[in-house]
């Protein structure tokens, strides 16, 4: 039986042979043993190093903006298509770009793979107490071997943080599905962390966020990794007039983080990438989560942020119950 990587490669070869795509975006091994990094192939030979496994990967959807060009700003010809390896989180991000009219769906060939959570090798190292040399995954049990020790770990324990909050484990609209989607993964809506913050007094809450934001080094990784952050020109990159001082004062930190959170409110697909890429571990998911929770409550929707033609904050109603 072919494994998933082989199945993918077969499909990629087919796509290139039939000249269906000009580029395929997937993953390959990085410098470190368990790092999996984005890979770009313009022909089948370049794609041969690509791999599918269960280690932590970044999201790929954001690259589509650069690779395809935005709709209305020199987007590629309809015949030029890009293939992309897609898990549920990436699928939502791609939907986000399509719904926001940044890219066109017909320019994509989506190769979907089922996913029941990725492994964070750092967590495995921590539990093992040394750097793992070998990590093998067998359904729900992970065997991590180091030079000295080896240990069986529950996959749950070393799941990537963002996978624990996953709201979409399958790819609904794939052009090619490598393996059948799994049965619906149990999606538990857990706002307990947000509720903890809500319980604080205004002063305590301010103090909490001040501490978090003051750590921010303004690298903009949260913005650059986010697919909902798809403005052609980001307000924070505008130098004249300068919307955000380069000074890293508390007031400016609040300004940056609030504007960022407000700007993706209702469009955040809860992929958790912003939180993951933050070098100083600011819990941005709490801010995004608060917006998500409020929107779900106020607008009576099941899951805020799922890209759709009509979205709670993207729709105008003449008979809106609340005055402007």
């Amino acid at each position, binding site marked *: 039986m072919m494994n998933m990587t082989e199945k993918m490669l077969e499909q990629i070869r087919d796509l290139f042979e039939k000249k269906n795509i000009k580029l395929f975006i997937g993953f390959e091994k990085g410098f*470190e043993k368990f790092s999996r990094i*984005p890979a*770009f192939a313009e022909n089948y030979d370049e794609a041969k190093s690509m791999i599918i496994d269960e280690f932590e990967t970044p999201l790929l959807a954001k690259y589509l903006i650069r690779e395809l060009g935005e709709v209305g700003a020199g987007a590629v010809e309809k015949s030029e298509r890009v293939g992309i390896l897609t898990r549920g989180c990436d699928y939502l991000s791609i939907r986000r770009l399509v719904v926001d009219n940044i890219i066109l769906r017909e320019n994509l060939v989506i190769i979907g793979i089922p996913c029941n959570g990725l492994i964070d090798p750092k967590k495995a190292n921590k539990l093992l107490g040394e750097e793992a040399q070998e990590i093998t995954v067998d359904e729900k049990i992970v065997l991590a071997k180091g030079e000295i020790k080896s240990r069986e770990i529950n996959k749950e324990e070393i799941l990537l943080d963002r996978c624990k909050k996953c709201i979409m484990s399958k790819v609904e609209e794939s052009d090619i599905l490598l393996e059948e989607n799994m049965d619906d993964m149990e999606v538990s809506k857990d706002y307990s962390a947000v509720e903890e913050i809500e319980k604080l007094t205004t002063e305590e809450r301010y103090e909490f966020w001040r501490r978090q934001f003051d750590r921010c*080094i303004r690298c903009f990784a949260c913005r650059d990794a986010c697919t909902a952050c798809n403005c052609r020109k980001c307000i924070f990159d505008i*130098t004249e007039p300068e919307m955000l001082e*380069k000074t*890293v004062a508390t007031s400016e930190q609040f300004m940056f983080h609030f504007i960022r959170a407000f700007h993706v409110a209702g469009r955040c697909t809860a992929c958790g990438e912003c939180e993951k*890429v933050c070098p100083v571990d600011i819990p941005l998911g709490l801010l995004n989560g608060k917006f998500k929770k409020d929107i779900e409550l106020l607008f009576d929707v099941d899951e805020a942020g799922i890209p759709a033609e009509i979205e709670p904050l993207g729709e105008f109603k003449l008979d809106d119950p609340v005055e402007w």
Partner: protein
Amino acid sequence: MDKLLRSNVSRLLKKLSEHAEIYAPTMEDGVCVLSKLVNNYDDWTLDYVRTTNSVKDIFFPQNEEIMRYKNANNDLNIEPPKPFKERVAFGVRPCDAAAMLLLDNVFLEGEFYDSYYKERREKGALITIACEKPDQYCFCTSFHSSPGATEGSDIVLYPADDYFLVVAVTDKGKKLIKANAEIFENATEKSGIVENYKSMKTPIGNNCSPGELNEKLKNEFDNPYWKKIARRCLGCGNCTFVCPTCHCFAVCDVARGCDGKRTRTWDSCKFQDFFLMAGDHNPRPTQVERTRQRFMHKLNYFKEKYDKYQCVGCGRCVEKCPVGVHIADVITHMKEEL
């Protein structure tokens, strides 16, 4: 040789705080940052491989006020910044201390020097702690350093059981120990411990030592490899801001009416507006040029100018890069290819 009991560290920091600002690794919401201790001299931790921010922050802060100005009724009044306080950084890693020497090259060498940086450096002392457990991102040994190296430090502490062996590296370090002699104790142990730290290997080892790579890179401005890695780069400034040797900055005025302040802030070659010029011309229009700039600066230009590579192998950029752009990867690849 002296030794310092671990249980005496807080006492030492408290004593030093009488004359100086104290910076030490502290845990903040699960993140280890090098931060200023104020009345909490027990809050330091040893539970880190590297602090998230480097020691660069203390001598070349992310933003600093260069001056304040006021122009009321055409009467211009300029206020320089207040003199800096003495400062002691405790718990620095050897790689970070070595990085300070590279920043010294930039800010202190030559005809002009940077007065703000100079004052901070003169008033600063580095107490380094040798690394007990380098992790998979560490590659200081590729840059002629080691987990026990002393370059750039004033004092190096070598962890042993419940104490540190103390090695004073500079006169400043010796004076500091002398002035606080009652906190240190005589150590009778042989210095085998120190040698062990100095010969310790890092996981990446010295496989990615650049050697003479700078010479070879001179002709590689148009190497397609830059395009390959830049394609992955998201364009955030993460790698440059956590780097202990990156030193590009911007100067900007923040003014309200006639009152204002001039500040210096870090800037990053990874940002799209970093090289943006008047008239909207950008000589580094895409991530390809920007990515190339970062690596060429570290592995070629800096070496040409100061005869050192501008990397100490601290591993921050490679740990923090969200998409696995890895300087050791670049070095290894280029060495193989060229």
